[in-house]
């Protein structure tokens, strides 16, 4: 490469090629708009819509006890943000039908002896039905229900109900361990900071791979690639010229996305911005080269798009960008090491939220660098092989 930059005619040729690509893109205004607008829309939408909190589940109630105590339980359940009252039902069967028709998300059945048992200090059981068709919501809702019931139980004891105690063999005068949790880096526990920073990396890879594969294939489909090959330009020059305008456009998108992160989501910037941008540039480059590799492996635009569409969902959902890596089975977790989105998300979160720099994040930067180099050389090699 060094010699290429040193020699003047080649440099001029490269400039001409870059100008040609720029003109081509400028004339395709739709492409420019579609490159900038949807990603920002996606970032905003995703950031707001993807949230692991569950609210307003419709809760149906069968209250066989019909006492102030049981009504208090219903109030305790529905005053939390997670559940809202979806109506009273006469029998458990009616409740079941309503759940199966999708009118309710959850139901609670309070037994006839509820109040009596409580006054006597006898444990009583409340049945809780959850529609687990959406298992994701159900998992979270289950946790909520348990938490609400725990608090309700504590309130009962405080209200003077005789508590049931089990076992006495121990040291009752022993001190208690009090756990004091402190939430670092995001004390307000804002969900969207995690999601939005994850989406950021996802967008960079997704868009750069889709767009570069499309651009690479188009020239071949239109048959103009032969003309380029007849010219004295080398394949490396052609590739560099092709990538430059896309790369600049994508960098523009990255800057806009950073602005969205800051202005729309209020993500704090504790670390250095240039460091984040440097990671983003590496991320874009690896995305572009990924797209180029896909393009050289396919024969038509359709195939390239299909493959890109196919590569992207698993790459994004198995990256730890949107969900914790620990949610993956153990045998899949090491694979995230090969995923540029994973490394970029770590860099962004480290630099923005935790305020750390290269000293801590060097393994991720190194991984991205290696990834980019390997993919770029792979794409140049494939391109050359295909053209010769």
């Amino acid at each position, binding site marked *: 490469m060094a010699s290429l930059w040193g020699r003047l005619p080649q440099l001029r040729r490269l400039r001409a090629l870059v100008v040609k690509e720029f003109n081509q893109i400028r004339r*395709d205004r739709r492409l420019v708009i579609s490159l900038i607008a949807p990603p920002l829309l996606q970032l905003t939408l995703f950031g707001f819509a993807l949230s692991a909190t569950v609210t307003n589940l419709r809760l149906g109630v069968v209250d066989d006890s019909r006492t102030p105590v049981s009504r208090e339980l219903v109030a305790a359940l529905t005053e939390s943000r997670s559940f809202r009252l979806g109506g009273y039902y006469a029998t458990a069967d009616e409740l079941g039908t309503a*759940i199966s028709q999708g009118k309710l998300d959850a139901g609670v059945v309070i037994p006839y002896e509820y109040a009596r048992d409580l006054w006597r200090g006898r444990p009583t059981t409340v049945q809780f039905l959850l*529609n687990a068709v959406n298992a994701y919501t159900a998992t979270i809702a289950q946790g909520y229900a348990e938490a609400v019931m725990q608090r309700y139980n504590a309130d009962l004891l405080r209200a003077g109900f005789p508590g049931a*105690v089990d076992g006495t063999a*121990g040291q009752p005068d022993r001190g208690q361990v009090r756990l004091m*949790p402190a939430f670092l880096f995001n004390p307000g526990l804002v969900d969207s900071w995690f999601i939005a920073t994850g989406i950021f990396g996802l967008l960079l890879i997704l868009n750069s791979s889709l767009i570069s594969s499309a651009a690479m294939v188009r020239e071949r489909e239109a048959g103009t690639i032969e003309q380029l090959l007849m010219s004295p330009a080398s394949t490396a020059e052609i590739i560099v010229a092709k990538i430059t305008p896309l790369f600049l456009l994508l960098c523009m998108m990255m800057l806009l996305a950073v602005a969205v992160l800051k202005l729309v989501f209020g993500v704090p910037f504790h670390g250095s911005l240039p460091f984040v941008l440097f990671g983003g540039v590496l991320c874009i480059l690896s995305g572009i080269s990924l797209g180029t590799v896909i393009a050289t492996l396919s024969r038509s635009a359709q195939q390239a798009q299909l493959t890109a569409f196919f590569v992207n969902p*698993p790459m994004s959902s198995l990256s730890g960008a949107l969900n914790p890596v620990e949610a993956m089975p153990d045998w899949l977790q090491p694979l995230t090491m090969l995923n540029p989105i994973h490394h970029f998300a770590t860099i962004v979160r480290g630099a923005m939220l935790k305020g750390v720099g290269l000293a801590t994040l060097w393994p991720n930067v190194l991984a991205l660098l290696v990834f980019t180099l390997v993919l770029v050389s792979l794409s140049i090699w494939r391109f050359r092989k295909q053209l010769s």
Partner: protein
Amino acid sequence: MSQTRKELIQIVRDWRTLTLALVLPVILLMLLSAGLTLRVDDLPIVVQDLSASPASRDFVDAFRASLSLHVVAWPVDRPPDEALTSGAARAALIIPADFGRDLARGVDTPVQLLVDASDANTAKLTAGYAAQITRAYNERAAGVRRVALVQTAIRLWYNPGLSSKKFYGPGIFVLGLSMFPPLLAALAMARESEQKTILQVYVSSISAHEFLLGKVAAFTAVALAECMLMLAVLFTYFDLRLAGDPTPFIVATLLYAFCVASFGTMVGATVASQVAAMQLVALGGFLLVFLLSGLLFPIENIPAGLRWISNFVWGRYYIEIVRDALLQGGGWPAVWLKVVIIAVIGAVFYALAWRSMRRMQLRG
């Protein structure tokens, strides 16, 4: 219809693309459902035991025994928050030097838990697990176990084991169906205008309806073929069965195939460039259906300002029908309205495609 035949021949001739379109969703289905689980456990946590007493070791052992947390070794002389900034652990537990002495004296002792909250949800989980372990430890040490007065018996209907296969299977099935057929249709349409073969259509005697119906029918067929293939996987590998009356599912699937094919054709008809068409399908097929349909994240979570969009997302209705057919079995009374809505949305897409075609068509 000869237009459908022409289109199908074109599709079948490019068999590599066709296999990709049919096989990729199936692989996607298996890969994603294997890779996504609903339980988060084995969260790494570091412990700094400044007390190093029998009591504190006992306390740490309680954490070691837990399945939800996973204790990682960390040297005592390194600041524990470094474990969080470097991503080595999700939380750090710091046991003070007076831990053992305080407990023996009957004084409550504070133990600090630093949690990496850059992932807010996992942070809540981690803190919750740690609190559970601490509570259990306290109860065990005191020898008193409080029995909760009101016990909750939680029944999970339709997916009692909270199996992620049963949850993700239908979702990814819908996603695959909403992504790949419209992509093919849009690319085929956009290619006609990019390669100017559409002009031949304009000057030919074929009417806009004939041309569009031919296209849509061809891609509906592709969508149905893909649907069959994925259903085969769902029934074998995912162990799913049709619950209850299958007719609403069959009708809805036919309509949905028509709907996505029309969507793709419409996009291709209005946008002349393949790249831009692909972007639009990515936006509509992937983003909208993935995000705003309740496929993964409940619709109720979306801020009200955006939630109304989900009413127009075709995938939202289909996913509910598919889940009903495969898990719930509510039948016609539960889903008839959704079937009608899918048909209406499909018709709207078709009408839009027809409008943009007709404008170009030569008269007479």
